[in-house]
């Protein structure tokens, strides 16, 4: 195997995203022609009146449009966070869910819903919850010295995740069973159904900021994936940089959890697919993972809308894909890394 050029892998990722976009905009209870969708989007961009019927314009701009943008943002965020966590913890098996970022952010967001906070405030509480959970997992992993620190890290993530899950249970138990509880339950299972144009900016800003931070640090991320002492000997201030990277990856995870609930496995599966496409160099891996993650979640979300008479929660679909993938990965890692 030799090093490949970046563009074929990137082209595959862009093709997946394009396919996801076309399907997400045209398929559904009210099927649309691709030409009509283009017409509406072009008309919106150029400011002229669309030729397509008003109902088409309304579906594209008010119903599917915001949901498509939200799906791309959430998918990209989870993929970028997973890529960064895997590099930072030097382990291809970790992901935002496994390290507790998702459950921490979910507890924060559930508390935000319980206290009836606004969207920005819920984002903030979710970020704080995610940061606390990842810090706790990392502290436990660092305190217990064994021959297999990564195993301890993953187990600590499971345990801390369970603790935060219990916290979510407490909030649900206390919540108003007629209004808040159903909202929390459906939201926790992962859904983009509630996406609307007004919520896109609070979703976009933290994801854009965190992703930009990670992309800016892409060359350092390469070095950070070496053993700690080696990275320090190469001149990288690992302790300070680790805090920045964990904060950035947790920020994008928390933003996506606050918007769409817990959509597991995307942060594990997509970085692997992206690495298979363009290799491990973060300079090309991060953009590819972001594009592929956006396309992947668009496809999953379209499936969720159309596969059954009622919407299937996204977390259920991603788990159906992710669980066998993880088991396969575990088996192949045993073969090649031990």
């Amino acid at each position, binding site marked *: *195997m*030799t*090093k490949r050029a970046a563009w074929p892998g990137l082209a595959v990722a862009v093709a997946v995203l394009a396919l996801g976009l076309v399907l997400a905009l045209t398929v559904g209870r009210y099927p649309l022609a691709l030409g009509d969708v283009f017409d509406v989007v072009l008309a919106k961009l150029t400011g002229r009146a669309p030729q397509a019927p008003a109902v088409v314009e309304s579906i594209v701009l008010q119903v599917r449009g915001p949901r498509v943008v939200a799906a791309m943002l959430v998918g990209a965020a989870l993929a970028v966070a997973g890529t960064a966590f895997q*590099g930072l913890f*030097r*382990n*291809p098996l970790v992901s935002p869910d496994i390290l507790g970022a998702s459950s921490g952010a979910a507890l924060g967001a559930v508390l935000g819903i319980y206290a009836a906070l606004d969207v920005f405030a819920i984002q903030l509480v979710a970020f704080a919850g995610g940061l606390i959970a990842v810090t706790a997992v990392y502290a436990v992993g660092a305190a217990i010295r064994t021959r297999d620190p990564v195993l301890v890290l993953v187990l600590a993530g499971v345990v801390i995740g369970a603790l935060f899950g219990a916290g979510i249970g407490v909030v649900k138990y206390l919540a108003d069973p007629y209004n808040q509880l159903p909202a929390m339950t459906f939201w926790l299972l992962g859904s983009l159904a509630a996406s609307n144009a007004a919520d896109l900016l609070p979703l976009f800003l933290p994801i854009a900021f965190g992703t930009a931070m990670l992309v*800016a*640090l892409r*060359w*350092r991320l*390469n*070095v950070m*994936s*070496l*053993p700690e*002492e*080696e990275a*320090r*000997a*190469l*001149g*990288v*201030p690992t302790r300070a940089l680790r805090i920045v990277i964990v904060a950035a990856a947790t920020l994008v995870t928390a933003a996506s959890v606050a918007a769409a609930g817990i959509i597991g496995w995307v942060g594990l599966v997509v970085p692997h697919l992206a*690495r298979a496409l363009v*290799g*491990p*160099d973060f*300079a090309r891996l991060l953009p590819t993972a972001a594009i592929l993650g956006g396309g992947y979640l668009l496809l999953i979300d379209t499936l969720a809308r159309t596969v059954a008479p009622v919407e299937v929660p996204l977390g259920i679909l991603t788990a159906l894909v992710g669980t066998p993938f993880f088991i396969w990965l575990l088996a192949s890692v045993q073969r*090649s*890394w031990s």
Partner: protein
Amino acid sequence: MNLEGRGLTIGYADLVVGTGLDVTLASGEVLALLGPNGGGKTTLLKTLIGLLPPLAGVVHLDGTSLAALSLRERARLLAYVPQVHVATFAFPVATVVLMGRTAHAGLFSPPSAKDRAIAAGALARFGIAALADRPYSRISGGERQLVLLARALAQEPRFVVLDEPTASLDFGNQGRVLGEIRALAQMGHGVLFTTHDPNHALRVADRVYLLREGSCLAAGPTADVLTRERLQDLYRAPIAQLIDSATGAVAFSPG
């Protein structure tokens, strides 16, 4: 230029590994660090390059305390070659060597054309330019050691510190790596390496430093210090001395 440890107590917060250690490494010379397992070789090596703070004493680089330099400044002066390992991710060899340029680039800046040229030069210097596009995880142990040496060279340091560079290599690759250690010194670098084989010190080291149970047993010019009696004392084991009748060259054999 000198890398100098004075009155060092080395170890970890809860464990003192060695005391009263004085070590000097000058530019252009090779110093070999020998001693039994658990004697403190790796700890001393990590203290000298600033990966571990000394519990007492100071490490100086030409009179400047190592503790006063940032990690980045240190990395421009000292290169560390760890024991060969398998990377978690299959970076291409060229990328691994390019990582040696980290301390010469800004925090957010991509590697420059100059960085890439220097990395390519380092690969060529060790005769492994053909490996540039191969994944680091799929080359042999000997090749990995050369890649790590190339990365150290790309760092453009004044001193190169190697942790057991010949361990786990076959006989041919051991000789090759020893030759490159000598070459690094001829290029003006100060080179410090640890080894379990006194013959490797005889072959390339100007001076040796014998470390037993955390204290210095002897230090000085290789031929003076490495005698059969002293090695038996160092390892507390019988050692045979072999002499090549043609050249008079000396080698040691355990048992």
